[in-house]
């Protein structure tokens, strides 16, 4: 089984009904020259990659950019169309006055399974006290948070907001809150590893392909930026497979991961077990 914990459904045809909305989405997210694709095309790629399920991530940038890249309702619709294939996440702009009501609705009515936030794009520090009620709301519903971390190439995104060290206080104050700092917080891989060693509630994902081929990128990540035994020895319960589609393609990252030597238990954890634990579908 393989679960992709990092997919942006911005070109899913089921939610591409309005040209203005599509144009905003493309500009705000910074992905161009792609066309909407239907479920058949999504599933044919997942089938080839042997990916069983994908977590879909929206983003609310209401106060910084005046809209949403993908809405909670749109993610809920896709997840409802194929509940066996998709794991729907919510998003909220933390500066919205109705942020907590939006989360209540997303978790209780839309049945979304986690929260996606992007400090770089939404312009907030994760350790800002303003965020505490949002973290408490996630704890109330036992929902995890996926944060964008490290480099963000979306327009109008500031990397300092998403530096991994800005998350340590969150891990300390909310030890029961499961948080994923996506993309290995690249290029701050050592800081990411430091957090995972210290805090068992901190996760990351494999969507690292900012330079090089998938094989070169994964080899560097798992054997140069990290010691080649670090995953087996210490980190195998905190790394999840994530592709960052549509920026990177699932099957190419998986092709590269297959070439990284690791214990089969570690590989299973990365491919799906950690994801199930992270979203609360499997006991700790």
């Amino acid at each position, binding site marked *: 089984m393989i679960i992709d914990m990092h997919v942006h459904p911005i070109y899913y045809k089921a939610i591409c009904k309005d040209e203005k909305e599509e144009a905003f989405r493309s500009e705000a997210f910074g992905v161009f020259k792609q066309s909407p*694709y239907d479920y058949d095309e999504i599933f044919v*790629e997942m089938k080839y990659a042997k990916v069983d399920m994908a977590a879909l991530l929206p983003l609310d940038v209401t106060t910084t950019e005046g809209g949403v890249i993908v809405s909670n309702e749109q993610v809920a619709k896709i997840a409802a169309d194929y509940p066996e294939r998709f794991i729907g996440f919510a998003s909220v702009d933390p500066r919205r006055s109705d942020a907590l009501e939006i989360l209540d609705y997303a978790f209780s009515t839309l049945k979304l399974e986690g929260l996606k936030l992007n400090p770089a794009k939404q312009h907030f520090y994760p350790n800002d006290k303003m965020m505490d009620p949002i973290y408490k709301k996630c704890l109330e519903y036992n929902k995890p948070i996926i944060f964008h971390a490290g480099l963000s190439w979306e327009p109008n995104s500031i990397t300092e907001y998403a530096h991994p060290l800005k998350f340590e206080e969150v891990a300390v104050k909310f030890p029961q809150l499961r948080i994923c700092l996506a993309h290995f917080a690249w290029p701050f891989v050592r800081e990411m590893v430091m957090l995972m060693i210290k805090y068992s509630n901190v996760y990351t994902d494999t969507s690292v392909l900012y330079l090089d081929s998938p094989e070169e990128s994964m080899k560097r990540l798992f054997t140069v930026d990290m010691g080649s035994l670090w995953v087996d020895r210490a980190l195998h319960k905190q790394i999840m497979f994530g592709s960052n589609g549509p920026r990177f393609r699932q099957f190419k990252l998986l092709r590269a991961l297959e070439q990284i030597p690791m214990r089969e238990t570690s590989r299973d954890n990365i491919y799906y077990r950690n994801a199930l634990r992270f979203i609360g579908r499997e006991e700790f």
Partner: protein
Amino acid sequence: MVELHTINWMSERPEQFHMITKEVHQIVEKSSIKNGMVLIVTAHTTTGIMVNEGLPCVETDIADTLDRIAPVDAEYVHAHFLPSYGATGNNSTGHIKSLICGNHCAFPVINGKIVCGGAQDIYIIEFDGPQTRKIYVEIIGE
């Protein structure tokens, strides 16, 4: 006169040979243009249009030869972030194989039929799938 038709096809693998001979012949035979030529053109830069003998062994030899020319693990400069896409380019093998195959083929049309050799099948070849592909079939004549 000019008529433009479109064939849509969804590939299922990163590389895949797909024969479109029958569809192209049918389009020409249903056309009101009886004499002229037909152009078959791909709308993409990581696919190829090929005319060749429709045998699995020929397909295998062509695929293997293209792999030797443009292996997946070569050090391509294209493997980096592309701001114009917002994605990392990692499909140089597809671009190079597309260049080798070419983006089109053409046949004469006489009395409402394509004039071609018996072994000449028409293929679109996927080099960066899976994805949906578009092939234009343009008939020019009278």
